[in-house]
């Protein structure tokens, strides 16, 4: 198996498609960047799909090719972790619409020979899941032992049993929601407008000039980043402390508009480093997919209807300081799962770190996921 070119780090495949999209458009071919860890067992029954969040990618437990940083979820995935390549065959693929090897606005449109830009079809969370299913077909995996995701990854995880009821045995949904709220959409619209207001955006057609709307994308990231943290977390980390000046001079009010406060400096850094590694158009497309997400709407307005045909077990986890997707959103999911008679576990964990808590060190989260995944099929 190890010599199979389909398996390993930094894989890329061009599938013929077509992939029929919720918008009515279709995508062909379908490019997918992905990674696998561990060994697929004899009966292909140990596959675990990891779904990434808005700005995540397939490098879940390997160094990022651009930033060189370790994988984004090495706390959950790796030797001795709840999801362990010694036991599991782990797959993580870049969602379509993104910019790390999967089809997205920066991909060349075969019809024109130019990057799609805004001609890329608008995609949904369910479309991302359908693309993942195509990848699984390519890898020879009929059924997942589990699908696991946090935030937008949790939405994909929820969409899996709703879209492919018999193809998944267990579903882990962390810090997520079954639909985007007005507030969620509002924050995303701020980000999109920041990108589109940047003159360098040029209607999305900025690839040839090699001069992307980095300033707009950075502002979008700054606004979104605030929603990933908690007020208590920001206060603890920065308070009202001033940023030290270059040369080591103590910080003070400049009576100007430099980044006087540490929190300003931090956000500016977050924005800039993000625009180095992410495509602004992808940010538009993926936030759109998130805003369109309403799993109940896809099932006649009844969320329980999404889970009627699956026998999968579910584990739902929220964090008490997460105000982006607060605990009540997880409870809505749990209520629907109960109404559908599904096996569901739910726990609200305590953390001061807001939405980002799912990516941070949380022994309780690991304990819950480990126990959940070790049970049943």
């Amino acid at each position, binding site marked *: 198996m190890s010599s199979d070119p389909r398996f390993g780090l930094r894989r890329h495949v061009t599938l013929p498609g077509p992939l029929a999209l919720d918008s009515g458009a279709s995508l062909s071919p379908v490019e997918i960047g992905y990674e696998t860890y561990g060994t697929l067992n004899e009966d292909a029954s140990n596959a675990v799909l990891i779904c990434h969040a808005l700005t995540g990618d397939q490098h879940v437990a390997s160094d990022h090719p651009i930033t060189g940083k370790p994988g984004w979820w090495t706390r959950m995935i790796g030797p001795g972790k709840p999801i362990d390549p010694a036991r599991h065959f782990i797959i993580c693929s870049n969602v379509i619409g993104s910019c790390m090897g999967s089809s997205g606005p920066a991909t060349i449109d075969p019809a024109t020979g130019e990057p799609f830009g805004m001609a890329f079809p608008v995609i949904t969370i369910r479309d991302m899941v359908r693309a993942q299913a195509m990848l699984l077909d390519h890898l020879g995996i009929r059924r997942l032992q589990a699908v696991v995701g946090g935030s937008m990854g949790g939405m994909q995880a929820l969409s899996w049993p709703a879209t492919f009821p018999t193809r998944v045995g267990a579903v882990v949904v962390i810090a997520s929601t079954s639909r985007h709220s007005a507030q969620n959409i509002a924050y995303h619209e701020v980000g999109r407008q920041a990108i589109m207001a940047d003159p360098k955006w040029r209607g999305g057609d900025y690839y040839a000039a090699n001069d992307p709307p980095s300033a707009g994308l950075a502002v979008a990231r700054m606004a979104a980043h605030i929603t990933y943290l908690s007020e208590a977390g920001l206060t603890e980390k920065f308070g009202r402390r001033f940023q030290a000046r270059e040369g080591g001079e103590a910080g003070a009010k400049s009576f100007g508009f430099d980044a006087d406060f540490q929190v300003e400096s931090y956000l500016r850094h977050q924005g800039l480093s993000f625009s180095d590694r992410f495509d602004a158009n992808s940010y538009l497309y993926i936030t759109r997919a998130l805003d369109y997400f309403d799993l109940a709407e896809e099932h006649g307005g009844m969320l329980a209807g999404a889970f009627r045909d699956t026998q999968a*077990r579910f*584990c739902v986890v929220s964090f008490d300081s997460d105000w982006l997707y607060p605990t009540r959103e997880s*409870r809505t999911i*749990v*209520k629907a799962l*109960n*109404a559908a*008679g599904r*096996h*569901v*576990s*739910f*726990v*609200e*964990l*305590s953390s001061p770190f807001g939405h980002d808590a799912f990516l941070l060190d949380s022994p*309780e989260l690991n*304990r*819950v996921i*480990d*126990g*959940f995944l*070790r*049970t*049943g099929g």
Partner: protein
Amino acid sequence: MTELRPDLAVIARNVAAGSRILDIGCGDGALMAVLRDEHGVDARGLEIDPDNVAAAVSRGLSVVQGDADTDLADYPDQSFDYAILSQTLQTSTRPRVVLDDLLRIGRRAFVSFPNFAHWRVRLSLLWGGRMPVTRLLPERWYDTPNIHHVTIDDFRALLGERGITVEKSWFLSGDKQTGSAAANLFAEHAVFLLSR
């Protein structure tokens, strides 16, 4: 087999194999684990304490963090063979509503509670003049989660008022069963199997 609390052992012995149960206030899932592993029961749990929920989920049980006082409404009618409420009735803010919910969600219900009319409790109040602190009721009045103390006779009266049938009952003193007639005086613990 892990050693179950005596009231839970009674329930475990009397749940039909292969049935579907909801354990409300399931703690760390001790009863659910025994029912699942030794009786082939399809067990679900509801528990208010997040540490207990994490412990139960990490042993592979399906447990939802929630409050019996507010979250039972989310469960569909007659979706379980048994609803189990062990040592939780006396902690709920609306025991009558919880009792009705039990028999709405489950076709039958097990309810267990510490008997506040046990002679030791009576003596403690009579001679000491202080709220009783006993082996089964170890907390002082300001610490106890038990906000609705109940006696066996009180509970029987409530069942009568609500038209609830007692299919079976067990009365425990320590881990030994005691007679039904003088249970209100001699039982530390009661377990009822109820239906409508």
